[in-house]
């Protein structure tokens, strides 16, 4: 499956790469949906790495498509769960007794990678030790700058905040800490004048 090329943007917008094997005594993978393909590709480059790997996978709409393939890589530990929120206690437990030299590989949607990265950074992992590769949906995780609520999987600009109901336009300004882009009221200076939503990147 070909990878989506995000248009060039401002310097706070994350730039995703391609997962590469790195030196380290332990390897943690967190992926959702098509993010599984990035793990499968990496395993081809360095199959030996899997013996010290822990894969946390959230299939989302891909259902069983990738589960058996990932298991077949024979990682030291494998988990498949229904949502990132469901996987979070496990992820935190992994970080709680991890040590320096742990390599973190994130793949899939921006929302998944961003949240796992924020969690890893809180655990004391430098961003340089975290690799990311975008796969699958280009939906964005948006924070409403006004009410602070997060709207997941935003596909259009503008969109309606799922918490306060304001019409927000989608900025490229991104917070690693919040794992979200910034949404700002689009009709503050002309209430009610809200353009029709357009699909992102269209």
């Amino acid at each position, binding site marked *: 499956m070909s990878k989506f090329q995000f248009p060039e943007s*401002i*310097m*706070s*917008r994350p730039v995703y790469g391609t997962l590469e094997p790195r030196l380290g005594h332990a390897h943690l993978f967190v992926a959702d949906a098509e993010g599984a393909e990035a793990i499968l590709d990496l395993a081809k480059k360095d199959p030996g790495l899997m013996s010290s790997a822990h894969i946390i996978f959230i299939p989302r709409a891909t259902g069983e498509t990738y589960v058996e393939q990932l298991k077949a890589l024979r990682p030291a530990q494998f988990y498949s769960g229904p949502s990132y929120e469901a996987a979070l206690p496990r992820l935190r437990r992994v970080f709680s007794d991890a040590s320096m030299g742990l390599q973190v590989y994130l793949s899939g949607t921006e929302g998944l990678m961003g949240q796992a990265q924020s969690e890893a950074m809180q655990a004391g992992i430098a961003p340089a030790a975290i690799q990311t590769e975008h796969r699958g949906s280009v939906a964005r995780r948006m*924070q409403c*700058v*006004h009410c*602070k609520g997060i709207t997941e999987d935003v596909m259009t600009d503008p969109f309606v905040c799922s918490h306060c109901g*304001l019409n927000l336009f989608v*900025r*490229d*300004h*991104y*917070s*690693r*800490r*919040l794992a979200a882009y*910034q949404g*700002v*009221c689009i009709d*503050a*200076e*002309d*209430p009610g004048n809200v353009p029709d939503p357009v699909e992102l990147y269209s």
Partner: protein
Amino acid sequence: MTIQFNDETFRDDYTFRNSDWAVKRFPFPFHEDSYMYSVNMEQHRGGPEGSVYEKRFDVDEHYVSEMKDRAIVLADDPLRCQSLPHMTLAGWDLLELIMVSKSEDYPDLFELHRDGNTWRWINKPLGIDDTFTFLDETTLPFGPMEYITRQSQGDFAVLDQRDDMLWMDAGMVTTQADWSLDFDIGMNFFEWHAPVPKAHEMGIFKRALKFLLNIQQGAPARRLNWTMTVNPLLDTSPENYHKWGIQKTGLTAENIGQKQFLRVELQTFYRLPRSNALAFPIRCYLIAFEDIVSVPKWGRRLHRVIRDLPEELATYKGFIDNRPKMLDYLSQYDDGLPTSPGVWPDLDTEPALSK
């Protein structure tokens, strides 16, 4: 001089006013008849007597009212003041810097008595007299950064320095030009400046970062920045933009002189001793157009700067829609005469308006 503190508001009925004294000492930001980004740094070691550059932390007639406004903002939204856990030491550094500077520069207003780590701080304008243990957070009602910046005009960003980079890891931000500390906290220098157009391509931020990384203890620096605000609203936050944005549409030919304000930030930079962090106070000064044009040189020059400003900058600074109205007003005060170089009003030497 003893300062007469105004009783005024920065919201609702907007009773904010500058006295003649405040107008004449206003930090007018344009040293020539045009404007483009530049790093424009200079040392922060005093300035002409009475100017806003004279003291390390300028205190003026708006002090008490600005602090009241800050308290209102924080009560409404405590996320405007945040400090990541590793920044507490930098908060103490900042508290020391401000207390020492203010008590030395304004002995009639502020006193600091130190006996080892037992400190007594007296802030007369705000009626504060607190004794606490330096470096012991449990002895203050707030964290050290919040405690002292609730008593200091202007916003404060406290930047951690690591890996040849500056990180926005703590701040008190209630008088901002439309940026969100809650969103930007934890970002590096390039990231929090990402939305600024043009300057990245011009290499401005790379040069500025290099300069800032090398600011040393005992050698603070300063620069000015500016934007425009309708009404003397200090808290132009993104958080409340859906509430105040509409005010930008209320300008008319009749009210623009009173309602349109030039907003100038005096930005200063101090290397903090214990934490090696960089304190970045951002002091906001507001002045109504009608007060600017009372200084003939400033009236002429502001017209030319606003007229010739590139569209992207007027858009980024949020006044592209109001620019025609501004120019209609300001052109009345531009008679085409040349202006003297530099920022000072030069009231005695510049000619009066001749039209």
